[in-house]
Every structure is written in structure tokens, then in C-alpha cells.
């Protein structure tokens, strides 16, 4: 069982909450897929794993189910790209669509 620090826990908790609403999911993806996001390519490499983490009911059980055993909840949580606030503010225009 991995204990996350508050920063990692907040990233996981609020990414999962915002992901479940299609509108806010679009905003997250606008940020994470932005050509200037420094971790865009890394996100693309691990996208399926990250999306799984955001959508499963039990993140800890999800990580433990992955093969090969290379991830912990902490390390996979850190694959959720950070929110670059400039891009987040830009993504507000998506809300009106």
C-alpha cells in the first residue's frame, strides 16, 4: 500500500474528479496534449496507463494489477501530467462549446 504525500494525493484526486466530467476532461486534455506542454510526449507514451488510473474505482488495486510490476501508486500518479495554468486558462474557451 503506497501512502501518497499531499501533493501527489491532490494530483490524483482532482485529476480523477475532473476526468469524469466530459467537459472538464476536454480541458485537461487540452493542457496535457498542448504542443508546448513539457511532458506531452511522456503522456502519450503512458496515456493508456494514466487513463486507466483516472477511470478505475480503486487506483491502488489497479496499480497492483499491472504487469510487469514496474509501477507504484506514487510513480504512476506522477505520470499524470501537471496542469500548466496558462494552458488551463486558455482551455476555458472549450467550456462554451
Amino acid at each position, binding site marked *: 500500500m503506497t501512502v501518497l504525500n499531499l501533493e501527489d494525493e491532490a494530483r490524483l484526486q*482532482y485529476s480523477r474528479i475532473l476526468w469524469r466530467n466530459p467537459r472538464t476532461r476536454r*480541458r485537461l486534455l487540452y493542457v496535457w496534449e498542448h504542443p508546448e506542454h513539457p511532458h506531452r510526449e511522456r503522456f502519450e507514451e503512458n496515456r493508456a496507463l494514466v487513463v486507466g488510473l483516472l477511470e478505475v474505482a480503486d487506483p491502488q488495486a489497479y496499480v497492483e494489477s499491472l504487469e510487469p510490476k514496474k509501477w507504484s501508486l506514487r510513480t504512476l500518479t506522477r505520470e499524470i501530467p501537471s496542469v500548466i495554468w496558462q494552458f488551463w486558462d486558455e482551455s476555458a474557451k472549450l467550456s462554451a462549446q
Partner: protein
Amino acid sequence: MPRRELKHPAQIEQWLADWGRRLKAPGGMILIGSGALLWHAAQRGIEIPLPENSMDVDPITHDDEVAELCYEGHIGSPFELENGWHINLMPDGALDGLPSGWRERATKKNYGMLSVEVPAPNDILAPKMRRGEPRDLAHQQWALYNGLISS
């Protein structure tokens, strides 16, 4: 430009009332930290400002619309430019620092669509007292002076 940090109890009430009007669906938050102390003061009609002004508020939510509003209030955001303080969205784990049974002592209030739950002043102050920095002690003294807690 005059200083616009968070120090007046009425600032918390105005912020929550505004968000309660903006929500399109019911949403909730738990408020901790110095913003929560200001909330208690506002409920008692206290106008004495908080010493050692705060730069942020610390809400916790499970609702996407509330979380989105909190993201809009990130550090350096237009929200902060307007208000002088920002939203520091906290995870559930932040509640682990409160004394056990805090929920039984908490207070709830609705602002339109927004339901706000605020731990009791003594519970809010418990993590601050463990940290014990001068600013935390000043907030404890302010709470004592204003009758939010008893000695």
C-alpha cells in the same frame, strides 16, 4: 495598488455566496485552514481582521464543478489578481490532521447550490498548534480574543 490579502471575515462570505450563485448543480466543499477560521468569525458577525493575512484558502471537494472553480482560482490566476488570494485545493488526506470526530463537531451552511462544511474552530486550530509557527499562534490568539475558542 492597496493590499488585498485575505483577512476580513466578510471576504469568505462573499466568495462562497458568489460561487453558490455560479454553480449549476449542487456541489460541496469542506473548508479548513485560516479561511475556515474567518468563516466562523463571519457567522458571528465579527469584523476584526485576521492578523498575519492569509494568501489562500484550503477547500476539499469531491464535486467536479467545484473542483473546476477551484482550478480557476489557482495561484497567479485572474481570480487571484482580482481578489488578492488564491485557492489551494487540498486532498482528503489533509483531513487526517484534524482531531478524530471532527465531523460530529463541524457546521454546515448552504450558499445557493454550494454546501459548505467547516470543522469546529478548535479542530481547525489543532494542526496549526502542532506546527506552532508564529503565524499559527497569532491565529490562535485571534480566535481566542474573538471567542471562537475558549482558553
